[in-house]
């Protein structure tokens, strides 16, 4: 099924413009539940109340405030918030090109496919050039009144645009202390290395399936037919053994497994 573009714009690189269309690259498959009122089995709604009086406050009376210190708010009016909105624009401005490893995984937010809008020659040429040079473009644009920072990279023949999180939104491991505790011993280190080497492989997405989602749907379907599927009780156990014993046992088991395969 052809999908509709959610936005159109121009990718701008100096004086060169590449007209593009934006499409969502994801389709959420999460099993969606509604929240119901247990008594009437009808859907619940949300509203804003004053927690002191439990009274509902209608939308038109709600104000927005920024808490400057506990209990003190500066009210921000709709007009003031609107004045902070960026100017509307159809341009995706390229700021710089960097090697992909410069952008850590935690910065990537939502992916979108870019497709050519009209003439596709420039689009495919840019995708090819980005792929050849192994670079990602860092870009800025405004979409639906929101300013975005993003990254564009080539995936096969096409361009993918990611929204990136702001630096302030990401907690950095570099600002955290290394975990406390005794350092592992040499023997343990060499066994751990052996162990991960035995488990080393390629990342192949086809190897992974959401099996739990399937279980939940099967369960829901059975219940819908009036059955009451039995479920097992969950118990949690934890075994303790010395680290090097467990490591050598793991290596043995994996080696055996590899031989058998």
């Amino acid at each position, binding site marked *: 099924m052809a999908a509709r573009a959610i936005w159109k714009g121009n990718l701008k690189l100096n004086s060169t413009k590449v007209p593009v269309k934006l499409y969502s690259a994801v389709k959420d498959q999460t099993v969606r*539940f509604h929240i119901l009122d247990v008594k009437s089995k009808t859907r619940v709604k949300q509203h804003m109340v004053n927690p002191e009086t439990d009274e509902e406050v209608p939308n038109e009376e*709600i104000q927005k405030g920024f808490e400057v210190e506990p209990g003190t708010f500066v009210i921000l009016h709709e007009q003031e918030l609107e004045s902070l909105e960026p100017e509307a624009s159809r341009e995706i401005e390229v700021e710089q090109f960097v090697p992909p490893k410069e952008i850590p995984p935690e910065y990537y937010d939502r992916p979108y496919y870019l497709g050519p809008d009209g003439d596709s020659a420039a689009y495919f040429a840019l995708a090819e050039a980005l792929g050849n040079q192994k670079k990602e473009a860092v870009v800025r644009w405004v979409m639906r009144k929101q300013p975005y920072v993003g990254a564009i990279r080539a995936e096969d023949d*096409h361009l993918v645009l990611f929204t990136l999180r702001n630096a302030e939104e990401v907690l950095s491991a570099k600002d955290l202390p290394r975990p406390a505790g005794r350092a592992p011993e040499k023997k343990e280190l060499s066994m751990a290395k052996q162990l991960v080497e035995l*488990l080393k492989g*390629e990342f192949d997405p086809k190897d992974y399936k959401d099996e739990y989602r399937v279980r939940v749907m099967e369960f829901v379907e059975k219940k819908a037919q009036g059955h009451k599927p039995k479920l097992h009780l969950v118990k949690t156990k934890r075994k303790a053994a010395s680290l090097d014993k467990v490591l050598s046992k793991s290596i043995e088991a994996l080696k055996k497994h590899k031989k058998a395969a």
Partner: protein
Amino acid sequence: MATRKSSKRSASNKGNGNARGARPFWSGTITFGLVSVPVDLYPGTRTNRAPLRMLGPKGEPLSRRYFSQKTGKDLEDDEMIRGYEIDKDKYVMVTDEELERLAPESSRDIDLRRFVDLQSIPPLYFERSYFLAPSEGSEKAYKLLAGTMEKEGLAGVATFVMRGKEYLVAIFPENGILRAETMRFPDEIRSPREIDIPEKKKVPAATVKKFEKLISKHSDKHLSLKELKDEKTEQLLKLVEKKRKQHKDIVEVEEPEGDEGKVVDLMEVLKKSLAGKRKAA
């Protein structure tokens, strides 16, 4: 994530990842081989640095609550249940306990059965970032795993069930700490063909060369963090400061009692947790 019922407390409108409290988001176990490493999971991102509160006409902070459409009354946690809509207005009820029991025990551990090169996972998969901290007693095995992965330049990949949803996850080592990136499953990513984006046409080599030249010219070795600045929030904070100095539109309300509404600094929680002091916090 599956819809969670939130209590009146947690459903208040702070919208800030920081406000969730000092407790871990989830506690579980990483396994590699037969080694198990109990860990606590904390959010690795904050959604909003400058969240706005919803206030009433007199400036009183408001709470978001669920209410019944039938009776109009506010509902407590135990007065609500999840329902899957099988027909219009017809639902199959599913309890928390049933969802919990649907996950086999083996699926609850982050079982690292594959290690891959750090750079080999396409970012299309990355969804959300968490920190894994050693939980009591697991420091040594944790350090061993993190240290080995860092030295070998490897990320671990696994699936596991957490709070009513299965996650595909990649574990990255950094600075002796393990970071978990939850990922999309392959069937959650569309292909260009599915969207009907045209297939590649042959393009003149000269046009490709022209773009390559432009790319080289504007390339930098490093990502400029300046690019990742949140300018909109910066402007909002400036406006707030200006109004504050002018004593304009300021309301003071009595501080709520207890911990409710207290904003917790996630970074501090993490630091304590990594130093093995979570219990004392």
